[in-house]
């Protein structure tokens, strides 16, 4: 099934649950009305948290730039000996 259908079904299930809570009044209705807002805000906060954590843990590799330069020099030397004119960057 298409992905959007999966997402909509999930939202429908959550909505049905919410409506059920409203009708059953296990939680005071005033709280229940606010649940969707709590849900959206939590989702937003979770997203921001994931971005922040990911940013802090962002893998970097400065040594790779050095290694690449070495490879480039090595390749240029090789081609010079073989008479292939690669010109300059």
């Amino acid at each position, binding site marked *: 099934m*298409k*992905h*959007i259908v999966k*997402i909509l079904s999930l939202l429908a299930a959550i909505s049905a649950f919410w409506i059920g809570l409203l009708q059953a009044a296990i939680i005071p209705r005033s709280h229940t009305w606010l649940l969707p807002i709590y849900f959206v805000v939590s989702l937003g906060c979770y*997203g921001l948290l*994931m*971005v922040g954590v*990911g*940013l802090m843990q*962002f*893998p*970097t*590799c*400065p040594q*790779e*730039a050095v290694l*690449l330069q070495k*490879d*480039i020099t*090595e*390749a*240029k030397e*090789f*081609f010079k000996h*073989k008479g*292939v*004119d*690669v*010109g*300059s*960057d």
Partner: protein
Amino acid sequence: MADEKENIGEKKYKYSIIIPTYNERLNIAIIVYLIFNHLRDVDFEIIVVDDGSPDGTQDIVKQLQQLYGEDRILLRARAKKLGLGTAYIHGLKYATGDFVVIMDADLSHHPKYLPSFIKKQLETDASIVTGTRYVKDGGVHGWNLMRKLTSRGANVLAQTLLWPGVSDLTGSFRLYKKLVLEDVISSCVSKGYVFQMEMIVRASRKGYQIEEVPITFVDRVFGTSKLGGSEIVEYLKGLVYLLLTT
């Protein structure tokens, strides 16, 4: 100790490496040199799809063909800049390998990772092995904080909306089973990096097994702003398109 290939099975596989180029005169030579260095015991061919580069890229490729053999390096050029997706399709027509590797010509993708792609595929029989920059042994060099932020934000958004099953959606260093690439590429219509996202998401939806290997990505295009407002809009539109149609 027997040759590793004999341990894995009698069948010896061939790999076609498709590299689209535009004005990569120096880089294409270096990439070819590095590929030959790192794939010494592998049967492969390099297919250069050049879009009419004015800087003499095709001349260099022809010299490389003299050096390495015309059966190892195929030059399949096009008249002008026609886009990445069609470049892959064009290269695919000439690919005689069992597997196809796609990679960038600007040295942001280092050929030294090719053996790990091949090994991962042989171990898992995956349909697609994709390189990921965002895991511990991977990484990026040359991005400032803003670039990392947008990358990370874009990734979180895509993960939340699409549940793609891979950590690096916009990466373009990948190994495909040839038949899988042919199948997936025929159903993709996007352009640019959204195209790369569409490829991997469609493959995931079709149930193809996708594995990841860490890669490092050295961005040497300093100073050029690749992330402007219009790119962000294009990205968001791409996300919505993928959300609704995959």
